[in-house]
């Protein structure tokens, strides 16, 4: 009773105040007195109208010109960006010292940026990175617009080393599709805080297609419903990316390279210095369930929030790529010409340029112990081709207090390697030159050029090796009603059937204990039957 009053009374008081506020709107005169001027009907979300800046009132010929104009006011912004992964494409592991990042790793999608910079840099926050001579200190080469455009007209296409389209062109060549030149002045005058569309223009389309890479990031998150992501729900909380990935000095928090896999303590106060704001715990704490659900709160020392609250990823028709087999690339159709074939849902299934793909939607994750440290295969690392090569190895175990069971997407593939030097190879794929794989369909030339660009020895003999690339799943958080139920893990063939090192009731059992228990139960039953039988016989005999 008392608890009901405790809840109802504040609610009534709150209602009384808010209802009054709604019922009696304040008149402008009353607030400001006689001399007060009426304010504009609507105000801009920003404190600056960029249409009014002289520096932006000109026809820009290139992206760097726009950046120079931006820097006249935002004097430090380029320097800040130049210290971020979005510019360097490097990430040093603070614990192992390993230098990772797109620039250094070899993945099992497009494999490597080396020798393919002109294509890959469509997703670099910069202009002009076309080979290893790119100068990372030139401030005007920082691309402000790719993150801050609000017009939706700023596009960077593969093949232009990060520059947008300055002249109308047909893209892809021969497709008959025309891409208009970007109006740089219009874009520069209409900049704003990054939206989901800005971030998504690269992060939704990694590895050359919508939803291809991550599994929990695709264009459906531009306008998501509640079912897809309870935080980003367009009609609900409507989080932008940076609501969680809080940003300071252009440093965007939260990265799969340096993950906080296990956070302890309560929710974090905003404004507090916080190394990992991009985590569930930073808002929800590590005991997020009501006290009546103590058992669930006891799970948080072993289970990541995402394990229960993201029951499946790629929850839409877009789907995600689950495998890429490069060993089928360069195979032509019966007429000797390149073939492009789609799967039943219209997603790429085979491409003579790239090989064979497998896709799926509503994917049930795999589960791994993870402590936030992942060791990546970087360019030049030795491999054992008799084993499946792990592109990244997740650290962690049941004994590690900093480990939790995480849901992951595992992207499986086959990709080329040097049979003598035992390294994954770099291959020159994009471009119109004679050695580009996607132009000439010649593996030998493509690998020779790629390895030369990366400064790696190449024996001239290549084969294909199986690889696995693991991705932590952390987006597409379902409403709480759709979290996993107990039995989905606590059963013989449940979700966590392959997770080792921890005892799980209903999944695990002790043969000795089980046998002992069943024996006791059987003996009790037999005792009851014998006892009852004796009583019946004794009663009959009088």
């Amino acid at each position, binding site marked *: 009773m008392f608890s009901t009053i405790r809840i109802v009374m504040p609610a009534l008081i709150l209602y009384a105040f808010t209802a009054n506020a709604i019922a009696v709107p304040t008149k402008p005169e009353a607030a400001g007195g006689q001399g007060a001027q009426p304010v504009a009907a609507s105000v801009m979300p920003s404190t600056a109208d960029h249409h009014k800046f002289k520096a932006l009132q000109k026809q820009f010929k290139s992206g760097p010109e726009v950046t120079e104009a931006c820097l006249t006011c935002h004097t430090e912004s380029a320097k800040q960006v130049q210290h971020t992964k979005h510019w360097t494409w490097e990430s040093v592991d603070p614990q192992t010292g390993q230098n990772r990042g797109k620039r250094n790793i070899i993945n099992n999608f497009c494999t490597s940026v080396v020798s393919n910079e002109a294509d890959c840099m469509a997703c670099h926050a910069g202009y002009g990175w076309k080979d290893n001579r790119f100068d990372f200190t030139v401030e005007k080469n920082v691309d402000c617009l790719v993150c801050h455009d609000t017009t939706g007209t700023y596009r960077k296409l593969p093949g232009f080393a990060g520059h947008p389209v300055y002249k109308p062109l047909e893209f892809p060549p021969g497709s008959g599709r025309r891409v208009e030149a970007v109006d740089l002045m219009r874009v520069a005058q209409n900049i704003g805080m990054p939206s989901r569309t800005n971030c998504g223009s690269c992060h939704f389309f990694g590895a050359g297609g919508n939803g291809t890479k991550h599994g929990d990031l695709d264009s459906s998150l531009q306008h998501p419903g509640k*079912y897809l992501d309870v935080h980003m729900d367009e009609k609900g909380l409507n989080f932008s990316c940076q609501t969680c990935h809080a940003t300071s000095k252009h440093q965007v928090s939260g990265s799969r390279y340096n993950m906080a896999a296990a956070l302890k303590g309560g929710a974090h106060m905003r404004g507090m210095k916080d190394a990992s704001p991009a985590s569930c715990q930073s808002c929800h704490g590590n005991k997020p369930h009501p006290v009546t659900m103590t058992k669930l709160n006891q799970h948080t020392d072993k289970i990541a929030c995402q394990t229960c609250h993201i029951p499946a990823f790629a929850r839409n028709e877009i789907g995600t790529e689950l495998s890429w087999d490069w060993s089928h690339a360069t195979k032509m159709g019966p007429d000797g010409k390149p073939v492009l074939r789609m*799967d*039943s849902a219209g997603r790429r299934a085979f491409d003579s340029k790239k090989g064979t793909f497998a896709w799926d939607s509503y994917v049930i994750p795999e589960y791994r112990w993870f402590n936030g440290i992942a060791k990546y295969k970087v360019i030049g690392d030795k491999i054992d081709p008799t084993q499946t090569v792990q592109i990244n190895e997740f650290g962690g175990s049941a004994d590690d207090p900093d480990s939790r069971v995480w849901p992951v997407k595992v992207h499986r593939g086959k990709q080329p390697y040097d049979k003598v030097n035992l390294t994954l190879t770099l291959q020159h794929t994009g471009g119109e030159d004679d050695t580009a794989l996607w132009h000439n369909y010649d593996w030998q030339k493509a690998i020779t050029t790629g390895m030369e660009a990366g400064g790696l020895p190449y024996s001239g003999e290549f084969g294909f090796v199986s690889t696995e690339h693991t991705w932590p799943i952390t987006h597409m958080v379902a409403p709480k009603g*759709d979290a996993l139920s107990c039995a*989905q893990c606590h059963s013989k063939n449940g979700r966590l059937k392959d997770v080792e090192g921890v005892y799980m009731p209903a999944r695990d059992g002790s043969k000795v204990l089980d046998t002992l228990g069943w024996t006791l139960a059987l003996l009790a039953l037999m005792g009851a039957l014998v006892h009852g039988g004796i009583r019946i016989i004794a009663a009959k005999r009088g």
Partner: protein
Amino acid sequence: MFKVIGGFVAGVVFVGAAAYNFMGSLMFREVPSPYGVEETVARIQQNIQNVGNGWALQGLRNPVKPLEADGGNALPVLMIEACSTKYSGPILNDDAIRFLSILMPCKISVYKKNDGKTYIGLMNAGLMGRMFGTKVGEIMAGVAEDQAKFTIFDPDTPAPAMIKNTPAASGGSSGGGAAGGC
């Protein structure tokens, strides 16, 4: 005498309980598919179009979509609807059994379960037909025979495209109805 009646009653109760328990699994079948949801749907659709006997696709429903629109989640379910005038005609023209139109169009459900695998849910048309007399039994036996062919897959043929926009049945026929349907 008591023993005989008691035994008979016990037998009736046992058979009744067994029938009650197994009825569901007898009326409906579930078979695993070697393909994903979309490819399974596409291959079944292709088989339906190729099997003849007046079969035509009537629609492809996604019962999960309304749930998602309401903010909820479920693993994917796609329901293929198909009909054949050869089998539907005699039922629709007989007042005594016209109520069986409630079973039209024929539905095949393709869905994913929590084990990540794809399954096909089918009605046991043959058994169900036998419950409604000889005429319906014979018709439904034909349906069952064709239905078995819907789920025979040839792994050597490339995956066809899933047909998403099958013309829905309107006025008893549809675009697909020119070649069949109901």
